[in-house]
C-alpha cells in the first residue's frame, strides 16, 4: 500500500499554473523533459463533480486508491485517503467502488 501522500496541497500551489506559462516557455515540439510531470500540473480544471470522503464511514480498505484511473487518490500517513483535486477529473469511480458508501460526488458549484 501507499506510504505517503505525493504532494501536499501547499507544495502543488507553489508550481506554476498554466496562466503563468508563456509561449516562450514552451519546449521544442511541446516535449516534456521531466518524466511524471502531470503530477505537477492542474489537470482537473474541467471537472464538474468532485468526491467528498466521509472519514466516519471509511474503513481504510484502499479500493478508491486502487481503482482511481488517474492515480488522483493519495494514501495518507494516518491510513485514510485524500483526493488530489489538482488531478481528479471527477469520474466518480471511487464513489461507485466504495463498499462503505463513504464517498459522495457533489456538483462543483456546491460548497
Amino acid at each position, binding site marked *: 500500500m501507499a506510504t505517503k501522500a505525493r504532494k501536499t496541497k501547499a507544495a502543488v500551489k507553489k508550481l506554476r499554473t*498554466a*496562466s503563468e*506559462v*508563456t*509561449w*516562450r*516557455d*514552451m*519546449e*521544442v*515540439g*511541446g*516535449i*516534456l*523533459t*521531466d*518524466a511524471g*510531470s502531470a503530477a505537477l500540473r492542474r*489537470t482537473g*480544471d*474541467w471537472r464538474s463533480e468532485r468526491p467528498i470522503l466521509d472519514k466516519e464511514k471509511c474503513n481504510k480498505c484502499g479500493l478508491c486508491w486502487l481503482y482511481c484511473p488517474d492515480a488522483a487518490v493519495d494514501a495518507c500517513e494516518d491510513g485514510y485517503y485524500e483526493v488530489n483535486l489538482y488531478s481528479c477529473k471527477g469520474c466518480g469511480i471511487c464513489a461507485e467502488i466504495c463498499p462503505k458508501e463513504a464517498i459522495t460526488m457533489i456538483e462543483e458549484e456546491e460548497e
Partner: protein
Amino acid sequence: MSKRVALEASHACCEAVRMADTDVVAAYPITPQTHVPERLAEMVADGELDAEYIPVESEHSAMSACCGASAVGARAFTTTAGVGLELMHEVVYIASSMRYPIVMVICNRALSAPLSVWCDHSDVMSVRDTGWIQVFCQNNQEAFDMTLWAFRVGEDPKVLFPVMVHFDGFTLSHVTEAMFLPEQEEVDRFLPKKRQYQFALDPDKPMTHGAFGPPDMYTESKISQEVAFRKSKELIIQGWKEFGKIFGRYYYPVEPYRAEGAKTMLLMMGSLNETAKLVVDRKREKGESVGLINLRLWRPFPFEELRQAVKDAETIVVFDRCISFGGPGGPVFSEVRSALYGMERMPKVVGFVGGLGGRDVPIKDIEYAFDRGREVAEKGSEEIFETVGVRGKVEGIREPKGVYLPAK
C-alpha cells in the same frame, strides 16, 4: 571531384538519401513515386545503404514510423505522392508540430476524381499549412541537391522542422537527365555524419513526446511553433549558401531569370520553369520586356525576397497547377497577390491555371499566358482566373450576378 551521371529524379533523390547515410526509410509505393522506395529497398538489400527499411502498410503508417524513428534521434526519410499524401495527412501535422526533421520527397500528383496519376500541384496545396519547410525542384540535379540540403537544414537544432522536397511526377520522376553526383567526402563536409538531437527518447532519461495540449496550453504551443518556423528562413538561406560553397550550385528562395527591368514577369513553381525559360529567351530576342520568377521556397513563404524581385514589374502572371474551388484564384496566385498587397507601387497580378492532371504545358501555352496576362492586366477580365490548354471557351469562373445581404 563530382561525377557526371544520368539519373531520373526518383533515383537522384535516392542517391542523396544514400550519401546522407539515412538510418530509417519507411515508405509505401504509389505512382509516380514508386521508383523512389523501389530503389531505396534495393540499396538496403544490396548493402549500399545501411538503413532500416520498414515496408509499411500505408502512408499513414509510413509517416508514423518516421516520427518514431525521428523521436529516438534517427535520420528518417519517406516519400509519397498525390492521394498517398492525403492518407498521410493527419501525421504530416504531427511531424512538424513535434519538430521531427523528417525528409519527405513528394513526386507531385493530381488528386482524384477523376482518377489521375499524373502531375499537378493539388497534393502540395492540401499540405500547404502543415508547418513543413517546402521547396520545389526544376530538374533532376535539384532533386538530389534539395534532398541532401533538406537533411542538414531540418536537423539544425535551431530549425528542427521536417522538410518536403517537391518535384513533378513523371516530368521529373521518370525522366533521365545528366547531372552531377558529388564525392562522399564533400557530402560529409556539408552534412554531419550523425544527427544531433538533445530530446532523443532514451529509457535512461525518460521524457514525454506528444503530450496532451489542453485549451490553456495549446495556443502557446502553436505560437512558439510559428515563431520558430518563420525564423527558420534564416537557416534555410544559410544552408543554401554553404551548399553553394561546397558544391558550386547556389539556390535562393526566389530565383529571377532574365527578369532585370522586365515589365511582365511570369511566376511558377517546379519543372515548368525550364520550359518558360525558353519562352523568355525567345521573347527577349524579339525585344519583349519579359522575365521569369522561379518560386523555390514555398514555406516559409519568402515575402521580402518576392517583393524585391518584382518591385519594378508592371504585371506578374502567376501560373498555378491547382484549383482552389470557389476561392480567390490558384493558391500560388492568392499567396503572391497577398504578399504584394500594400506595396507602394504594386504590380498587377494575373492568375492562370493549367497543367492539371498531367496535361502538357507546351511553349505556346506559356507564350499565351504572357500575352493574355498582359491583356488582362490592361483591360481586366470577367473571369476570376484565366486558363490555358482547356478545350472550349472558358466562361463562368466568376460569381453569379446579384448580392444577398441582410436588409439594413
